[in-house]
């Protein structure tokens, strides 16, 4: 018995990983996936009452395994969130309008590429095992009067459009079931270019101060808060 333990220990000590790998899972290099990203709203509050909430984002992607330890994915991501918004014109709001009424809906879409590299030193082989990834995404968002809080502006009217870019870094793990289904979980950290995820322009004390820059900052900062930290969970399907 003891000899067997020593044998096992010997195996582990004596050998280093020396394995070249055919890329992909059993030769299949493409897989499609969808996932949900969520986390507590830690910094930039989306609501007027400052209560903590939960962020949610949705993502779909197509991943291609490049080598034993790397893959490249094209991703589409969607999110929506309430955001503080000041109408351009003071006439749009009545004098007794509360903070609550300065809310709009921001809908964002990102398109981008994510490069993942796997911890081959620990035996992970794309697309399963432990990975790290970096992403660069183009972000496009639209702010709408979704809640109808702006007087004289019809509900659903697009108030503004913004563009930016997002850089993400993630760590996680992927599992494969039934030779087809890929389950993955991990954390992702992101930064929206030009944003201060911890900051928010306070407009409550100066109603008369209307500035499109303030709206832009609020929106971008809000989006940045959504990207800051996320728990990432999803399901994929190995195609071919």
């Amino acid at each position: 018995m003891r000899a067997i333990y020593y044998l096992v220990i010997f195996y582990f000590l004596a050998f280093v990983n020396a394995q070249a790998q055919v890329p992909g899972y059993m030769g299949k290099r493409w897989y499609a996936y969808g996932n949900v990203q969520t986390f507590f709203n830690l910094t930039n509050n989306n609501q007027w009452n400052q209560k903590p909430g939960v962020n949610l984002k949705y993502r779909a992607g197509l991943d291609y395994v490049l080598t034993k330890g790397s893959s490249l994915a094209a991703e589409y991501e969607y999110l929506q969130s309430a955001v503080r918004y000041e109408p351009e014109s003071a006439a749009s709001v009545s004098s007794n309008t509360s903070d609550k009424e300065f809310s709009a809906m921001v809908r964002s879409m990102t398109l981008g590429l994510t490069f993942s590299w796997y911890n081959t030193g620990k035996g992970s082989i794309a697309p399963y095992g432990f990975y790290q990834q970096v992403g660069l995404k183009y972000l496009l968002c639209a702010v709408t009067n979704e809640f109808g809080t702006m007087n004289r502006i019809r509900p659903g009217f697009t108030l503004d459009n913004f563009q930016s870019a997002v850089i993400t870094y993630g760590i996680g793990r992927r599992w494969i079931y039934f030779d087809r289904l890929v389950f993955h979980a991990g954390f992702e950290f992101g930064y929206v270019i030009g944003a201060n995820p911890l900051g928010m322009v306070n407009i409550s004390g100066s109603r008369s101060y209307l500035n499109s820059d303030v709206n832009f900052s609020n929106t971008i900062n809000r989006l940045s808060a959504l990207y800051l930290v996320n728990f990432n969970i999803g399901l994929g399907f190995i195609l071919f």
Partner: protein
Amino acid sequence: MNLKLISSTFFVCIISIAAFSQDYDKGEYLKSMGNIPLDFTKLSSEKYQEQAEKINKNAKAKIKRSQRDFLLESNFLNDEVLTSGEVLFNDPLSQYVYKVANVLLAKNKPLKDSLRFYILKSSAVNAFTTNEGIIFVNIGLLSHLKSEAELAFVLSHEIVHFQAKHSMKEYVDERTNKDYKEMSLEDRVLSKCNFSKEQETEADLRGLQMYLDAGYATESLDGFYDLLRYGYLPFEEKLFKKSFFETDNLKFPSTYDLAVINSVTTGVDYDDSKSTHPNVEKRRSYITQQSNVLSRAKKGKKFIVGEKEFNAALKTARFEMNRLYIADRDYIEAIYNSYLLLQTNPKSKYLKMSVMYGLYFLTKYHNRNDKSDVTKSYNDVEGDSQPLYYLIDQLSKEELNATATVYAWKLKKEFPGNKYIDSVAYDLVEEMVTQNNMKPDDFSANPKKKKESTNKYPSYVKRAPSAEELEEEKQFMKYAFVDILDNPEFVKAFYIAEQKKKDFEIKKYSYSYKKQQKAKQAIIEKKGYAMGADKVVFVSPDFKKVDLRKKMALRFMASEQALLNFNKRIIKTTSSVGIQSEILEPKAFNSPDIQKFNDYAVLCDWFQESHDFPYFSMFQPEMEQIATRYGTKNFCKIGTVSLKEKKDDAAAFILASIVYFPLLPYAIYNAATPRYYTYYYCYVYDIVSGKMMLKNQNLIHLKDQSYVLNSNIYSSVQQMKYKRKQK
């Protein structure tokens, strides 16, 4: 008379004839025969379950648990031995052992039917029994016997161990004895040894009764105890003389003669308190005393089955030892064993080739500065084989290489046209040139001139050689090849080797060659191997599940189930990739698959023998036959070890979760789950050339889940099939 009886009688006759027709010179080695017994093919889990059902249900829970644990360990570990390729059945030696056992058990048919006797291909002088009624007798023990009666006493001793269920009793006693747990480590060892010694004495005593009842002679009992006492020595003591390797022109210096030989010093009165077996001399005197009491009126026989059959079995066992020694890399033992056997079989090609292989491998290891891996110090050797150890110790790399070369070329002349001797002879010349920088000019083509004797004393007076003579003796290498240098083939071999060396050196310093090799290696590292194989044979895939958190760390049942699934994965993957495959594994064999079983056994020997350098194997002829039989040269060793252990960072995460509460779910998960490791390996060899064609090994920090195994197997199989396009 029914047909079954006639056919079985015919089979026994054939076996008996085979016992006398084992011709090692023709490559007829020991092989299993007939149908494969169920012991080899039945799953260990099935054997365990069958036996576990028989455990007394009224026994205490602790005892029942210990018995179940014992049966589990015992069945699985015995099966490891049975499926190791090292066990022979129905071969001439097994048949002979059966005959002796039949004499002992003639009056006890139920006991006879519950026992099976197999031969274990091991050079150790030993026999042992299992709780399931299997008695293994080592070839090493058979080769040391002096009479049939000695074997009879060994068998009767082992049969008593089985009858009295000693192994299970010892196991259960150790686990259920309350006092035992409270003892210090030393007291535990002593207690265990005492228990074991009691059992050995019981086996001796009851075995003696069985032995005497069968009609064997009491005087042979001494031989049995000599066997125990001197089993570590070769089967015979005959002084080794260095002239064995010498020719008319190759004469070793007198300093290579060992002046004083260590005498055999086995202590008679050694302390047996920490030994599992009683002192041999105590056993001898006790049993001699008892035998005098028991057989006062009897006069037994040394041979009942017959002396002729004993001698045939003995010869077979002793010849087979050479193969065992070489597979175990005990080259000096192989040479000495051959030396002893050549005294009575001076023309045996097999024995001479064994000597050649012994010298060949010693040379290979010595040239690579690894001689100590395959030899032991001559100071640790006792008896008449010590001068051989001394001689090998004294020979420098060049001298050993030259000695081996002279021997191989002498054999080449004696047995012309033998391609295996030719291969070794040429390779040894290559070793001389490439490893030792030796050239034909280093040697004289003319014999050493004999000086006229200046001895003033009568010839019977021995005098020490003078300094001048000693200096001259040291030059013995110069004349080593006088007999061979006129052989154009030998000279050609030298020039071929020199050319190879030149080519190699040119390549070694060539920038483009280095670059090419580097690129080749980089491609292998990046894209993997490209064997271009159509078929691969997987030899005994292995799967071990180990849970280091458990007392019984090796998870037997889970390992067996995992292995069955692993085999299915291999077949499924190879067929999906489009490569033919076959699995050679005893548990997967059917009863008539004896050819496959024997092939499997030889392959196990071959894998055991494998070295880190190119070489010509003693098993080469059989490898060529196997490659032809299976239609491929590619044979694969594949396996997985899956390990579970306790995480050492669980407490740290719990603490961290107190500071930062969102971590709590992960901390709980982390603490509740073990750490997993999966080690996967896959090696493919070309069994004809001995080259390793593929080497995959992967330490994965993940559980051995289906996708982890599938992807690793797929990757290896894909590399086996893929053929890279030549630019």
